[in-house]
């Protein structure tokens, strides 16, 4: 059972990283335009520019 000593903190740390990541996306307004983000990947104008 000694393995728990580092497995449990690791699991928690991973979860916490996810939570902080979500908080960051929220703070940088990444959910303001969900439909727009889906469409912005479609145009290929970055390729034309080369």
């Amino acid at each position, binding site marked *: *059972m000694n393995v*728990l000593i580092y497995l449990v903190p690791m699991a928690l740390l991973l*979860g916490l990283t996810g*939570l902080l990541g979500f908080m960051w996306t929220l703070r940088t307004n990444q959910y303001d335009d969900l*439909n*727009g983000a889906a*469409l912005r990947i479609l145009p290929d*104008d970055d390729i034309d520019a080369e």
Partner: protein
Amino acid sequence: MIEALDLSNFVERSEPGRAHITLAVEAVNCAGCIRKIENGLQKLPGIIDVRLNFTQRRLAVEWHDRETSAERIIAALKQIGYSAHPFAPERIAAEDKHETKWLLRCLAVAGFAAMNVMLLSVSLWAGNVSDMTQETRDLFHWLSALIALPAAAYAGQPFFKSAWRAIRTRQLNMDVPITVGVTLALALSLYETATHAIHAYFDSAIMLLFFLLCGRYLDQAMRQRTRRFAGNLASFKAEFAHRFGPRGELTRVPASVLQSNDIILVQPGEAVPADGMIMSGRSEVDQSLVTGETIPQPVVSGMTIYAGAINCSGALTIKVAAAGSSTLLQEIERLLLRATEAKSRTVRLADRAARLYAPVVHLTAAATALGWLLAGASFHDAVVTAVAVLIITCPCAIALAIPTVQMVGAGRLFRASIILNSGDVIERLASVDTVVFDKTGTLTLPEGVADVSSIDPDVLERAARLALSSHHPLATALARCARERIPYAGVVEESGSGVHGNIEGQEARLGSALFCGLAEPSPQANATNGAASTIFFTHAGHVTAIPIRQRLRPDAPTVVRALMARSFDLIILSGDRSKAVEPVAKQLGITQWHAGLSPAEKIAAIENLKSGGRRVLMVGDGLNDAPALAAATVSLSPITAAQLTQARADALFLGEHLGPVWDAIAVSRRARSLMQQNLGLAIVYNALAVPIAVAGMVTPLIAAAAMSGSSILVTLNALRGRLGRRPDFVHATGSSPQAKVPIAEDVPKDLVLKDVAVTRDQLECVQ
């Protein structure tokens, strides 16, 4: 003359030299639009940043103040092919956004904690039936406490705050049992952990918060979406006014920035943008949006004029009055206040359930503790059982039961062109048994239509083409009949009388009777033949009278028949003359109609119905309907309604069909039955789970399974509302032969009415 456009009120300046504006953009509906708009504007000199929010159809532009201006940006957009409207961000919208984000943060924290605590709990449940040692169990319990306690303290805030507010005003809402339940469960679990007990309820408490926050967030998201959409619509519809500057120069400004004592000019054919007093000029105004009266009334200087009236003939100079300073508006405000107070007494289904639920839950828990003590159990065991009862009865399912159905119902109504102003509208709509209609602008379309049944087509064509050169609303109605949409050359408009010109070498005139060389007919003559007004046309010595009639909404007869078939009581309450109301009522087969009513009389009629136990849906658009809308159980307005009226209506519908009225009721009834089913499910769940809890047999495993099981069941049931046939009345029956109204056929199909130009497509765009 080119007027300058003044948008300075909409431009924000955060730092010197930099300006920012938010614009609502119309007709953005594909990936190409984003690129076209953003790249197009980037090319302008001085632009710092352009970002189009596709979901909200709003464009944020930032630029160097010296190098370009908001006016130039709008002009550039116009050139690319998009009309943009300045959008004033309101304070309430900012607060709303803040609140949504906060709820989402709480939801994220609760979700994270629930997942991790559950990870530990599952191990505990497995360990309890195998070989877990006391030390490992304690470690897992302490770890759960470490995660759950701070998470609950953070994510529970929306409930704790709301419960505290309720208790301070000596009331009970759903958040009180939630707060008590969660707090007790956590405290008890902490004590159990410290005393090395087998069971702790950290997982139940945090999962409960997670489910409840889901319901809370859905509710908030729905409200935010409709408010955002309404904000865009308001800016699309926003009117501009011609304001005189200090040196007498004219500037075009948005009507929303007008202040009292501003002097404005209203041209013929324009709507009056603000209430005020006429300083100079003489004209006729169409007050149908204000009073429901369809015959234009003559006005002269010194008279008061209301926003929404349409200036028919001569240019008017108006001094803007302070909001609500006119007697009509004061009267309406006073009536509104009274009606709104009366309405706030109706109680929402969820609140009714909460008021009943909270005491029952607390009493059951107390009785359980007392019962076990009397039966000889230890104090500790009695408290543990009572807390288990509190956890099991916590209104998870109930808290989700109603918001999810409202969310699904509102989405469905949205697709049927109906925008709700608040979530509980659905409940009120579902209970309706009497529908009261206003006539002008509600049963009929806001614009008149020429009755051409007895007119020679060639004469009509000439008259209609001549009408293209006029701004008068009656002429505009006639102009829609023109097959060839090219105005004649050299036509002169004489303000206040009509237009004249040369057609095929002969003098032609279109306008009032006097202008065409006839004696002025009395308004009664018009009224007796049912027409709102008559326009005259002379050509080569022949005079033709063309009546302009009110046109019914195309599907009005079908909708009325469908409502009658479902035994709704239909009533028309109109401010218009009885001669104008009677034919409409007859055509629709509505036997109960009242004409010439003042706003106070409309309220009285509705109060009378309500005191007779009726639940009244009021459908109206005029300023004079606003108090009646507020007094009714629930109210609907077409999007063309006066601004004050729109603000009072519980829901708005778009387009020129009346079908949304039927859709609104049908969708709401279905939603209400889903809500009731959901509450039923929640009650059945409680009936099954509470005896187990009272008996003291609820382990954390059972609590978790029962709680999430009931929540998922209720959510799935709510999502059933999305299944099935689209409740789209217009499309289902609009094409049937009975739906046609004789006069409606005269209007060319390809013409879009100016005020109803907000279409289903635009609606779906914003979604």
